[in-house]
């Protein structure tokens, strides 16, 4: 469904040159959830943005990307933009503060010249567990979890096949996180969606994904199946350290931590 080969992303020039993503290759099958894990600055979000076509104006992107047999050009096609949607980390920053939920949800439908916009909006809200009365509220009038549901509804409006999820629950309380993760799992089942999930939280990725890549310093260190992750059978020291750290505080284990990169 998604294939990335030899992706490189470089920001800036000369002294300010920053090589954010190095030689990243990955393959995601249709209907799969694929996780990208790493610490801040590892390049995981940049891979997602490069795939979505959000970096063409700000960085030099090279490498080959195909989505469902369509080789991606610098200018993404209209159909790509309909089929691939994104949900961002911060529901405060990604919803227009002066637009109502109704405006936020109808905009992508209008851009893609879809019909029956009102029905689509109501239906999308229903799918994310919000009733139609939310249409006329502003983002500041609803909670963080509801805001993230609106972001997901906005992604669903165009009837996508692929949703790129950038830390979709890291700004939420754990009880709300559980609700949103359950929602994402259900939507994937019902619509046969394919996900790429970017997160620093290994447990969230382990819960959601069938395969994952661990990134560090812009490169993929290791790609693991869920079985390998569950059995902690990682071969790379960096991944093992990340796994240990995800299990909680252990004073003796911390002394063995190494600096990587």
């Amino acid at each position, binding site marked *: 469904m998604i294939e990335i080969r030899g992706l490189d992303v470089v920001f800036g020039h000369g002294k300010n040159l920053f090589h954010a993503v190095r030689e990243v290759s990955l393959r995601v099958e249709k209907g799969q959830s694929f996780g990208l894990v790493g610490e801040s600055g590892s390049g995981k979000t940049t891979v997602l943005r490069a795939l979505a076509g959000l970096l063409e104006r700000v960085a030099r992107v090279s490498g080959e990307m195909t989505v469902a047999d369509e080789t991606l050009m610098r200018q993404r096609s209209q159909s790509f933009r309909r089929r691939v949607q994104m949900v961002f980390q911060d529901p405060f920053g990604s919803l227009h503060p002066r637009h109502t939920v109704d405006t936020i949800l109808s905009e992508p439908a209008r851009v893609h010249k879809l019909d029956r916009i009102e029905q689509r909006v109501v239906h999308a809200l229903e799918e994310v567990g919000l009733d139609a009365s939310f249409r006329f509220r502003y983002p500041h009038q609803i909670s963080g979890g509801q805001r993230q549901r609106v972001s997901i509804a906005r992604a669903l409006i165009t009837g996508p096949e692929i949703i790129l999820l950038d830390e979709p629950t890291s700004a939420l309380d754990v009880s709300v996180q559980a609700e949103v993760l359950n929602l994402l799992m259900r939507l994937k089942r019902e619509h046969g969606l394919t996900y790429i999930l970017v997160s620093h939280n290994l447990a969230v990725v382990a819960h959601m994904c069938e395969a994952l890549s661990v990134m560090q310093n812009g490169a993929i260190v290791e790609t693991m199946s869920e079985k390998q992750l569950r059995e902690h059978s990682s071969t790379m020291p960096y991944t093992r350290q990340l796994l240990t750290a*995800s299990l909680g505080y252990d004073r003796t284990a911390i002394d063995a931590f190494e600096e990587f990169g």
Partner: protein
Amino acid sequence: MTDSPLLSVEDLHVTYNTPTGLVRAVSGVSFELGREKLGIVGESGSGKSQTGRAILGLTAAGGRVSAKRLDFKGTNLLNANQRTLRQIRGGGISMIMQDPKYSLNPVMTVGSQIEEALLIHNPTSKRVARERSLEMLRAVKIRQPERVYKAYPHEVSGGMGQRIMIAMMMIPEPDIIIADEPTSALDVTVQLQVLAVLDDMINARGMGLIFISHDLNLIASFCDRILIMYDGRVVEQCTAADLDRAQHPYTQGLVNCLPRLDGSHEELPVLKRDPAWRTPPGAAR
């Protein structure tokens, strides 16, 4: 070392008068802190940070704090004068905030900020202050203390910034540290390394720690004892080891709704909130 607690809090209330009515941020929290690591866990709005701030008299303007008892080593914090409070803040009880970016002074070098914290509580010569600050930077495992001493906060990483905060809070040798989400902004490995620094210092000096966090796993593995807060109340107290056997449905819900590394892709149990949790504990308590 005596057995009497460092800090006693009994029936602490924090209320805010807002245009839409009275908001009860904390209602009736009681606990004692000895030389131990006490975790306060709860979701946003549970009152955990408000509890920490009320102890130090840092409740925002418009907030009212009342308690039957708020006692630090025999000093009543509720009717202490500002002079006493200033001595206790930093010297007796100090606080580590969440984000070093906002809580370090951006226009002062790291060294002079740490020295300032020391000099306010223990006047000493500039030379001694410098030596002790450098020693403190080494104690929080900063590799090039001389370089960092001269650096400004924006020149250091988040993990280093948090170590600097710890150094600054530790140098007046307080008895209690209140840490409000001290490592939430950090990557997981850095987070644990910073906590190890804090842990070692607390153990070496026999201090008390109040660790406020939303991260149940972290609190359970780091602290000795846990208070679970919901809607301004402590709904349950337990030792960290007994968290799995927690009795209160809210605590159980919090524990169960966390995704796990050995995850099976099944639905996560969702926390169902019971309005009864909000009613004040009856007289039978």
